[in-house]
C-alpha cells in the first residue's frame, strides 16, 4: 500500500488529532489542533491543484483563520481565565489516545462500507473517509472525556474539521459561498463560546462543564 502526498496530508491530520488526545495541557492541545488544521489546509490545496481552483482560496482562509487565528484567540482566553491544564478527565489521557487509535482502525473498516462518491482514485477516497471519520471520533472523544469548557470548544472544532474533511474528500466540494458561510459560523461560534467562558468563569469561579448540569435562578 503506497500513499500519495494528498493521502499522507489527510492521514497526518487524523494522527495529529490522536496525539491531541494524549495530553491535557491546553496550550499543547491547541498546538496540535493548529498543526492538524494546517495539514487539512495542505490537503485542500492539493485537492485544489487536482480539482476546483477555488479551493486555493479556501485553503488560505483555513490557514489564516482556523490554523492561526482561532488557536491564538483560545490561548489568549486560556491565559486570561487561568486554565493551563484539564485537571480531571473521565478517561486517563493515554487510554483515550489508544482508544483513538482503535477508532482509527474501526473507521478504516467502516470506510469500505461507504458508497464511493468521488469517481477518480477510489483508494484516495477511502483513505480520506478513514481520516475524516477518525477526526470525527477523536473530536467526540475529546468532548466526552474532558471536563473544562475550553476543551469542549477544542472537541467541537475537531468535529468541524472532520466534517469539512469528509466533504472535501468525498464530494466535488461545496460552492465557495457555502464554505465561506461555514467558516464564518465557526469563527462566530468560537467567539461566542470564548465570551461565554468569561461569563461562566465570572459567575461560577470555575469552568468545569461537568458541574454545570443543575439550573439555578
Amino acid at each position, binding site marked *: *500500500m*503506497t*500513499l500519495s502526498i494528498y493521502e*499522507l496530508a489527510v*492521514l497526518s491530520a487524523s*494522527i495529529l488529532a*490522536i*496525539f491531541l488526545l*494524549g*495530553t491535557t495541557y491546553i496550550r499543547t492541545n491547541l498546538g496540535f489542533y493548529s498543526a492538524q488544521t494546517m495539514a487539512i489546509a495542505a490537503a485542500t490545496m492539493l485537492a485544489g491543484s487536482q480539482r476546483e481552483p477555488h479551493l486555493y482560496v479556501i485553503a488560505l482562509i483555513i490557514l489564516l483563520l482556523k490554523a492561526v487565528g482561532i488557536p491564538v484567540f483560545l490561548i489568549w482566553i486560556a491565559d486570561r481565565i487561568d486554565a493551563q491544564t484539564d485537571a480531571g478527565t473521565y478517561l486517563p*489521557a*493515554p487510554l483515550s*489516545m*489508544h482508544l483513538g*487509535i482503535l477508532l*482509527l*482502525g474501526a473507521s*478504516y473498516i467502516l470506510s469500505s462500507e461507504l458508497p464511493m462518491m468521488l469517481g477518480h482514485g477510489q483508494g484516495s477516497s477511502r483513505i480520506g473517509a478513514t481520516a475524516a471519520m477518525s477526526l470525527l471520533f477523536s473530536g467526540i472523544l475529546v468532548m466526552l472525556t474532558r471536563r473544562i469548557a475550553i476543551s469542549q470548544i477544542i472537541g467541537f472544532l475537531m468535529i468541524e474539521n472532520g466534517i469539512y474533511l469528509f466533504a472535501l474528500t468525498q464530494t466535488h466540494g461545496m460552492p465557495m459561498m457555502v464554505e465561506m458561510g461555514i467558516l464564518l459560523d465557526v469563527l462566530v461560534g468560537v467567539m461566542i463560546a470564548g465570551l461565554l467562558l468569561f461569563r461562566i468563569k465570572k459567575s461560577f469561579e470555575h469552568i468545569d462543564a461537568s458541574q454545570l448540569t443543575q439550573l439555578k435562578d
Partner: protein
Amino acid sequence: MTEFFRWLVFLMFVVLAPPVSVGIIRKVKARLQNRIGASIFQPLFDLLKFYSKGETVSEVTSWIFRSSAGINFALVLIIALLVPWVQFKPHVASADIFLVIYLFAFMRMMTVLAALDAGSAFGGFGASREVTLALLIEPALVLCLASLGVVSRTSDLEQIFSFANLALSNQPGLWLLAGSGLFLTSLVELSRMPVDDPTTHLELTMVHEAMILENSGRNLLLVEYTHALKLLVLFGLSAQCFLHAIAPVWQLPAVLISAASGGAVLITLALVGVQEGLSVKLRWTRLPEFIAYAVTMALLSVLVAIAGRLGS
C-alpha cells in the same frame, strides 16, 4: 578482502564511537546552553581515567555484582553485532527480532541484580524505577519492530533493514512511525532527558545513575562503555528507520548508503542533544503519559502494517 575491511572498520567503530557519541550529545547540549562544553573526546578520556583508578567494592556484595558488568559488556557486544544500526555492519547468520529484544531484557536484568546485590538504598530505588519503566516500554519496542517484520514477512532484523528489501522500500509512513516510536523508546530505555536527567548531582531522583552508583574503577569503565554502546545501537536503529523513510524521496546510490547511514546516526545524536537542551525532566507520575506516545507510535505502525497486509 572487502569482508575483512568491513570487519576492521566496524570493530574500530565499536571501540571508539560509543564514548564519542556520548561526547557529541553533551557538546550539542552545551552549545545550546551558550557554553563551550568539553571536547567530544572527553568521555573517552574519562574511560581511560577509570582504567587507572583503584576499585572499592562493598563487602556485602556477592559474585553477582562482580560478574554483571562483564556479562553486560559481552551482551552489548553481541547486540551490536546483531542489530543493523549502521549499514556497513558485517553480515551475521541470524539476527532475530525477539532474540535481540530479550537480550536487551537480559542486560536489564543483570543491571538490576547488580544494583540490588550491593544492598544500598539508591540501588533499590533505581532498580525499582528501571523495572517499572521497562514494563511500560516493552510493548512499544516489540510492536515497532514486529510491525516492520510483518510487512517484510521476516523476523530477521538484517533483512528488514536491508535496502534490498522490496516490501519495505516504499513505505515512508511506516518507517517514520516505527522510527519515532523507537526513538522515544530509546529515550526511556537509556534513561535520557525527559525521563531521567543524567547530569544532576542528585542520584535520589535518577534511574540509571542510581543503579550503577556502587561501581568504581574498571567495573565502572565496563558499565559506562556498555551504556554508551547501547545508546549508540538504539539511536542508530532509529536513525536507520529515518534513513529508510526518506530513501524513496532521495534515491541513494548504493555506494553512499554506508556513509549516509553513519551520517544519519550523527544527525540523530545531534537531535538527541537538541531535545535534551529543550526539554525538562518530567515528574515521575507524568511519565506514563510520555511513554503512551511511544506506544501510540508503535500502535499506529501496527495499524499501517495490518492495513497494508489487508490491502495487498
